[in-house]
């Protein structure tokens, strides 16, 4: 880490030791291979560029998810959130989606956001599962606090896992009553919701070394669908 001033050090939250997320590869329904790996701070500007056009897409709450994620990623890059991490899904190096969260303490995780760019292939489900895997298996946490900001998220997390209510806890995302994924539920759900292979073959890993963005127009079209059906 570069040398920082005393003032800057006082502005940063204290950091915990966080294990790395070992990359994995997932075969999607299309037969394409998606590499899931951790995103470093210096890669954040690329993710921000991908999110930016989505800030005005109301469909499926991409605007609020995008705006909050934008802020969270900036905060990660500039050390203004405690113990945050970011994972990305890459198909041939092209960004398919991203997830983030943070460690509240050694036992509890806080899930932040899941944003899918390549839709229709359950990329979001895979990435959310990778996030839970990181908290429970790699960080050895007991539980993860979760909320959904869209009906799709509610269906994917609350119903599919299924999550338990922890409504006495206000989630960091807007103070919404929290749901929780306990370790036991995670392991029960793992056979049907968590997948991927390790180690990632070297060639695939190399293809995912640099994050490439799909064209902005393509991102908006994939996310927002046809604004005007075409005749």
């Amino acid at each position: 880490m570069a040398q920082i001033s005393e003032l800057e050090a006082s502005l940063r939250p204290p950091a915990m030791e966080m294990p790395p997320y070992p990359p994995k590869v997932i075969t999607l329904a299309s037969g394409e291979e998606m590499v899931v790996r951790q995103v470093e701070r210096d890669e954040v500007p690329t993710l921000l560029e991908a999110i930016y056009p989505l800030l005005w897409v109301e469909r499926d709450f991409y605007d609020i998810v995008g705006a909050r994620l934008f802020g969270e990623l900036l905060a990660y890059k500039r050390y203004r959130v405690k113990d945050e991490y970011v994972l990305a899904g890459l198909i041939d190096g092209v960004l398919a989606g991203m997830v983030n969260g943070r460690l509240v303490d050694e036992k509890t995780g806080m899930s932040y956001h899941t944003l899918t760019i390549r839709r229709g292939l359950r990329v979001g489900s895979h990435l959310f599962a990778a996030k839970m895997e990181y908290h429970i298996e790699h960080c050895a946490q007991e539980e993860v606090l979760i909320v959904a900001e869209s009906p799709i998220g509610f269906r994917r997390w609350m119903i599919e896992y299924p999550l338990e209510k922890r409504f006495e806890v206000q989630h960091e995302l807007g103070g919404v009553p929290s749901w929780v994924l306990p370790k036991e539920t995670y392991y029960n759900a793992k056979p049907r919701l968590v997948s991927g292979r390790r180690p990632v073959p070297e060639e695939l890993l190399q293809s995912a070394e640099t994050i490439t963005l799909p064209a902005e127009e393509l991102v908006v079209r994939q996310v927002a669908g046809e604004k005007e059906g075409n005749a």
Partner: protein
Amino acid sequence: MKPVYIAGAGMTRFGRSEWSLIKLASVASLAAIHHAKLGDVPIDSVVVANMGAARVNKQTALGSALVDQLALYPAMAEAVENGPASGASAFKVGCQAIASGMADVVLVTGVERMRVVNGLEGTDFVASLSHPEVEYIYGVTLPSLAGMFTRMVMDRFGVERKHLAMVAIKNHENGAKNPYAHIQQTVTMEGILTAPEAVVNNPPIAEPLHLFDCCPVSDGAASVVLVSQAVAEKLGGPRVRVAGIGQATDTHAVHEREDPTDLKAVRLASEKAFSMAGKAPGDVDVAELHDAFTILEIAESEAAGFFPRGEGHLALDRGETKLDGTLPINPSGGLKAKGHPVGATGVAHLVELTWQLRGEADARQVKDAKVAYACNFGGFGNNVVATVLEREAA
């Protein structure tokens, strides 16, 4: 009966649309009118097919609404609701008007805008076509009926999940070539069935049916312009004749059927349509079947007479139903990939087949298609409309 011709066909892209119901219907209608090159020939009648607008869009009297939107007054106008077979039923009504001499030009438009409600509500709205006292109140949905049907067909005829996946893969491949398809994404056997990740990629919906065995919920509209022989001659251009239409019904509740795996209404409707057309299943060059669930493409291909009972999946094994096979089925991508805006589906079948017979289907064109067949499957097979189209020399 006087002959009936399809002079023009058009549709919107299926998927999730921001357009209103009537705008969707209007855009498809204008595309069909433009395709027909109607010019100053007046439209005598408008028939709109739709299943759920009264419930999900809070709009009724769609025939009048479309006439008003397109300023087609004083054309006759009505809406037809016949569950998922609404589209072909409306087409039949339009054909009757011309065959009887009551009209010379009829615009038939199917439309549905069902993505305005969430998945649970959408599933419930479609389930309202089931028997209210012995099915619906017990929580029956269309996927659950299809799941039970699939299990019976698998047990009896040796159909396996790989055959269902083959239908999905084929139709997604076709859909990827169709700019009007809801899903333009290919899928692979590995990705949806054999890879360890397939468990996550393709989760169960109603066993043994999984996600990629079910059609998406779509918005969209499709439209055709039907004309009399006199108008067809005046317009010139390629001639697609409505050679035969058949319709048949079966018990409302599926369990009351003597053999629930026998799609009797498909068989009877098809026999009627082929008889009227003076054709046999073997004459058909291209077919659009109602694959709301992958199993239905297999079962309908048998009931329509294309393959012996219990052997539709073997034809798949042999590749006969692929775009370059001996009988291409669902070149549009089918409901599976093209999408299923319920009231529009039956009309969309006929739009695709019209384009196929006119040689206008671009990358998914079936070579030298002259005779085409469509099956619009209403209820869970309790009301089926079959149509045979034929290309005529101009």
